[in-house]
């Protein structure tokens, strides 16, 4: 029983990341009709926004410490962050410690701009081209973006820890009456799950309860008619692209303490997120979220030792296996709409 609860919990945070990325993918597909293979790269750029912000906070000047020596026997040069000079060591360190949550403020405008620039600069030229062309150009863009990140940040993962306040894990088992240590779950993963739920809720509320969202939904349903009403739907769709980029970026920022970011982390998520979108149903936002969590949890169950002893390798194929079964039984995915990707 405890093993099952544990894997459900594990699946929730994995599912949160899938759901957030798939939500952005579906938004772009539903509004602009573009299959965006660069969406994983947006997740990765979001993570590197956290790295960059962290580096900005730790900008330092060098002080020579005569009491210590470096590896060549010279007096040790110690980097002192400017924040120490400005706010004192304790406050400066506290600000640096909270770099990841604080970087959200930096990431949202950066990602909105990246999304806007990507759509206006490249993707808009491919609206009326076949999906194969869109896939090729966005996949190419993803490779370019990851190589640019590698050039500036190197190939090695960069540790970007969560604030000390969130270090360690919560003993869920003890709370539920099980023995201690049986069901533990890191605090930061709980934060990630709650954060994802808030972002997903906010995106749905934005589309459901604002005039802007209503117009966008109308445009997704019938672009031509909305255009005939004199509404500049393209402009709104461009903003939606920026919003989708920001969602992917935020997913990346908050993911950095879970796994140290590196230049190819976007590619690791991309294919799985596409499977999530297809399983959820092309163009269906609730479908993307549902499928994200469903596949995340299934993947966790398939990684259990007891399962692997019976079916070795299941953990590597489970997502694709489920995708095949769902597409055979429900060809439009879990919540797919008629007419989407069927023309």
């Amino acid at each position, binding site marked *: 029983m*405890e*093993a099952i609860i*544990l*894997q459900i*919990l*594990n*699946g929730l*945070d*994995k599912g949160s990341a899938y759901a957030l990325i798939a939500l952005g993918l579906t938004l772009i597909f539903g509004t602009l009709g573009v299959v965006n293979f660069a969406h994983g790269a947006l997740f990765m750029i979001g993570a590197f926004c956290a790295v960059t912000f962290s580096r900005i906070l730790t900008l330092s000047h060098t002080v020579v410490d005569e009491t*210590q020596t*470096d*590896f*060549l026997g010279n007096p*040790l040069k110690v980097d002192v962050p400017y924040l120490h000079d400005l706010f004192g060591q304790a406050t400066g360190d506290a600000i640096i410690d909270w770099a990841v949550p604080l970087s959200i403020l930096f990431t949202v405008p950066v990602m909105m701009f990246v999304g806007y620039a990507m759509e206006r600069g490249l993707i808009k030229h491919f609206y009326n081209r076949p999906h194969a062309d869109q896939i090729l150009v966005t996949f190419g863009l993803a490779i370019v973006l990851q190589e640019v990140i*590698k050039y500036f940040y*190197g*190939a*090695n*993962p*960069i*540790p970007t*820890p969560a604030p000390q306040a969130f*270090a*360690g*894990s919560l003993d869920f088992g003890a709370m539920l009456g099980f023995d201690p*240590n*049986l069901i*533990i*779950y*890191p605090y*930061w*993963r709980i934060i990630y799950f709650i954060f994802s739920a808030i972002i997903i809720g906010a995106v749905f509320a934005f589309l459901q309860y604002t005039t802007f969202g209503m117009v966008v939904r109308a445009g997704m349903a019938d672009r031509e008619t909305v255009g005939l009403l004199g509404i500049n739907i393209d402009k709104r769709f461009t903003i939606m692209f920026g919003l989708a980029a920001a969602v992917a970026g935020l997913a990346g920022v908050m993911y950095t*303490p*879970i*796994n*140290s970011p*590196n230049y*190819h*982390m976007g590619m*690791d998520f991309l294919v799985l997120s596409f499977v999530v979108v297809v399983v959820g149903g092309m163009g269906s936002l609730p479908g993307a979220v549902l499928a994200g969590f469903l596949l995340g949890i299934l*993947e*966790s169950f398939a*990684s*259990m*030792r007891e399962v*692997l002893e019976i079916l*070795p390798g299941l*953990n*590597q194929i489970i997502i694709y296996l489920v995708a095949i079964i769902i597409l055979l039984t429900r060809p439009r995915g879990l919540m797919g709409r008629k007419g989407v990707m069927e023309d």
Partner: protein
Amino acid sequence: MSKSNFTRRGLLKTSAVAGAGLTLPTIFTAQSAHAFTNEPTGGTVTLGFNVPQTGPYADEGADELRAYQLAVEHLNGGGDGGMLNTFSSKELDGTGILGKKVEYVTGDTQTKSDAARASAKSMIEKDGAIMITGGSSSGVAVAVQALCQEAGVIFMAGLTHSNDTTGKDKKANGFRHFFNSYMSGAALAPVLANAYGKDRKAYHLTADYNWGYTTEEAVRASTEAMGWETVAAVKTPLTQTDFSSYIAPVLQSGADTLVLNHYGGNMVNSLTNAVQFGLRDKQVNGKDFQIVVPLYSRLMAKGAGANVKGIFGSTNWHWSLQDEGSKAFVKSFGTKYGFPPSQAAHTTYVQTLLYADAVQRAGSFAPCAVAEALEDYEFDGLGNGKTLYRGADHQCFKDVLVVKGKENPTSEFDLLEIVEVTPAEQVTYAPDHPQMGGAEATLGACNNGA
């Protein structure tokens, strides 16, 4: 009246033979006029440095390349001479190798076996490389070693830790200075037993590929011999990034120690996840829970950040060693590049010097002569104390370092501290040891190529 012998069948036969000849890879034919593959005829000799320049180990590859460039500089008489000054052999005098100026070409292994073979092949065929060296993966090392064996050039392995490189897949033309999984297990086990006791229950997470298997086998064998019990060993996909679903059940198993048989990005992520789950803060079976990482590299420690603090592992070499060879190399490398060298840089630098020295002693670039000079060669002054290049399997036997993550690092390079220098005798094994492929594994015959 003359009768022509030119028949349709004859034409077909001749064409088939000629075609087969033409399609033979030039690697096997182009050098037929020479005594051996890529015999240097002018005033220079070309070495092929095959390192990951792209992909996840690109940073490690960059450090290897820096070391190779430094070695070439020293061989040609430039710089301060580095470890040439401390090397027990005094054959190398800064005038190149056998009086020929050393030049080099580079290839990108991408840490993929097929790409690594292609780049090595290109360096041999097109650039005339007489020796291939480098790499940051056992899969790549085994693949390139086999290619060099066929082509008739020497392969001086870079960073490869799997037993198989000089065990099951050893080759007469291949040589490894780096240590291996068996040695890590043999060096680590006593230190672990001393630090954590002999009554431990270990849970292994193992990367699902060749290196992972040999490391798990070696660490299990040596820790079980010390009295530890292995409660479970789970294979994790090489492409895995989030290890939470593998780490969460560890405590449920009753284990009090987690062994991460992971390298590179796998190790960075699994260790980060394990620390996130608070495993190290837990008490199991009345003991503090512990994590062990059999193979450390600086780049991995850097990627995992503060999570490595206090965690035991092993390493081939560390820049904080105080022997004359290490100090000379650190000074040379640090002055040129501004930071201390990694173990990958050290092993590749040393391999280049060892190759050059062997050629010098053999008086020939012929691979079989070089191999003979390297076999059972004992040397010192290159950073690991007295070392033997064993002839039976072409593996170096030297002291192994047991390290742990430093609690208070002074810089981004000061991440590990040496806990113990395990003497070579303690990590030495028989050439036909079962973990090395047993009696069936043989070097085969040396190949001079053309």
